[in-house]
């Protein structure tokens, strides 16, 4: 059985690795160097990174408390809320982008209010962040929720009985014990947001993020031009992930 499973598992693994390896093998070093020097490519990657970070940070500070509520409290409509949170995982991301447009466009209430404050969502980093957060929030919420659920509620009660306020109990007991799950969720949310294409392209084609740039180059110039940009972006993604993972390990 082990042999059969190793064989089948190996096939799945090969399927994941082969395209990436093909991508690498078919590019030349000078091509890559040239791409890295390309201001447009660098700009788009940098934009992808910082908007994903911003989205994770901004929406994460609201998502973590929500995850705690879902883990600890019973309230009417909890099941519905859980389903709604999972919704972005199911719907096509282009549709998610369209849905976002209806509340973010200049004609919508939110869009108008933001407009008065000098913020425009359409074709702006703010819009990109919104699109990224919309599709990636479920990862953080679900992961953090699982983490909080794994912390025995009696520990919180004990902390409060020892004199801690519920807030202090959360920050000194619950959060440190659920830390790994929260971090894992944050990394997932960040990664998912950074690589988001469908929702982003609808809310903001420009400024151009890396996934949109790769698509644009593929559409306009073909595979040869899209490939180096793709490699560079994948490389950057890998580096960021390794760093985040190492940091998370250290925090254990």
């Amino acid at each position, binding site marked *: 059985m082990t042999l059969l499973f190793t064989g089948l598992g190996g096939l799945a693994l090969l399927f994941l690795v082969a395209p990436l390896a093909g991508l690498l093998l078919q590019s030349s070093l000078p091509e890559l160097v040239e791409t890295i020097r390309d201001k447009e490519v660098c700009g788009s990657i940098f934009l992808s990174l910082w908007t994903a970070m911003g989205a994770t940070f901004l929406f994460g500070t609201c998502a973590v408390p929500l995850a705690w509520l879902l883990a600890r409290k019973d309230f009417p409509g909890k099941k519905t809320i859980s389903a709604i949170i999972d919704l972005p995982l199911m719907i096509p991301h282009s549709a998610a982008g369209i849905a976002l447009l209806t509340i973010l466009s200049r004609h919508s209430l939110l869009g108008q209010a933001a407009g008065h404050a000098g913020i425009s969502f359409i074709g702006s980093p703010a819009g990109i962040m919104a699109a990224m957060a919309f599709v990636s929030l479920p990862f953080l919420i679900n992961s953090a929720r699982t983490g909080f659920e794994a912390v025995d509620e*009696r520990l919180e*009660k004990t902390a*409060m*009985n020892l*004199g*801690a*306020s519920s807030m*202090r109990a959360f920050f000194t007991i619950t959060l*440190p*014990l659920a830390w790994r799950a929260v971090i894992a969720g944050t990394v997932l949310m960040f990664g998912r947001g950074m690589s988001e294409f469908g929702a982003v392209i609808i809310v903001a084609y420009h400024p151009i993020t890396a996934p949109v740039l790769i698509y644009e180059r593929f559409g306009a110039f073909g595979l040869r031009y899209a490939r180096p940009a793709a490699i560079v972006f994948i490389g950057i993604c890998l580096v960021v992930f390794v760093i985040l993972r190492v940091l998370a390990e250290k925090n254990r």
Partner: protein
Amino acid sequence: MLRIERLIKKEGSFCLGPLDLSARAGEYFVLLGPSGAGKTLLLEILAGFKRPDGGRIFLDGRRIDTLPIQKRRIGYLCQGDTLFPHLTVRENISYGLRFHRVPRGTWDEKVEEMAGETGIMHLLNRKTRGLSGGERQRVALARMLVIDPACLILDEPLTGMDEILKQDILGLLLHLHSRGRTFIHVTHDPREATAVASKIAIMEDGRITQEGPPRQLLLRPETEFAARFAGMRNFFPVRVASGRKRGSRERVTVLVRGKDGARPLSAPAYYVDGAGAMFMVLDETRVVVSETGVARPGGNTLEGVVKGISPAYFGKAALIVDAGFEIHASGRGTDRFPPGSRVFLWWPDEAMKFHKKTA
């Protein structure tokens, strides 16, 4: 002193109370009851994790049921393992100090003093992972006592421990209690209760059914549960006919409630020493079983059917006989009759003990 007045709490179909209870300052008060009696719910209300629907709670004259958890001065040891796994033993014990305005410079001294009391000095710098059940409970106790609560409430503190460890922890609890704090200890184990309690309250189905010093509960049970834990399986609420001269040798009728109406027994009036609603305990080892009945003066004879066999505490199994109501018999003759046999039961007057409900 802890005083509970008319406490009520509904949770689903379960109703706790109305409940009145008081524990003197420095008392070791044990709340004894089967699981599902509402003991943990009561503790959670005392500690402030749940709000009662009605009633009041006072600790040392101060009303506490309206206070937040942190201000009640009640140390609550939840059931099960509650050590903070990401902190060392020392950090666990000192956790509460920061919330009680204890200067940081004195933390070590306080922690070490408590660790000495609870015998865990050598564990202070360990992580909590890998500690044994007994060690964990000692750490939890030290952590609680270091912030000096006025009253300590313990929910099944010996769960999952072996016999020897139980003895150790009970010894530690008595030692800690000798410092003069009020302890409220919840358990379902009668032996545990009688080992430490200065007062026991029996809780069944959300209510206190009997309370008193352990000896009184053992000798004069007033509920089936209390009787069972005292090792008495023949416990009957009875109604004693009045009218006879108290203290006379004349026999009075004692009615025991059975499945199809009351069954009459009789006993000398001086022996019963009372009338009306009383409790009767029948010593099962004095109940003789035979095919034809025992021809002896005095005592009571009943006819019945053997329904089954029940384990005995002292070697000999008891027959369960249905004689209109269920009687356990482990006296002479019990080993000869398989279930289904028709038998006669006889017991002497001295096998019966009567007592009244304490006011």
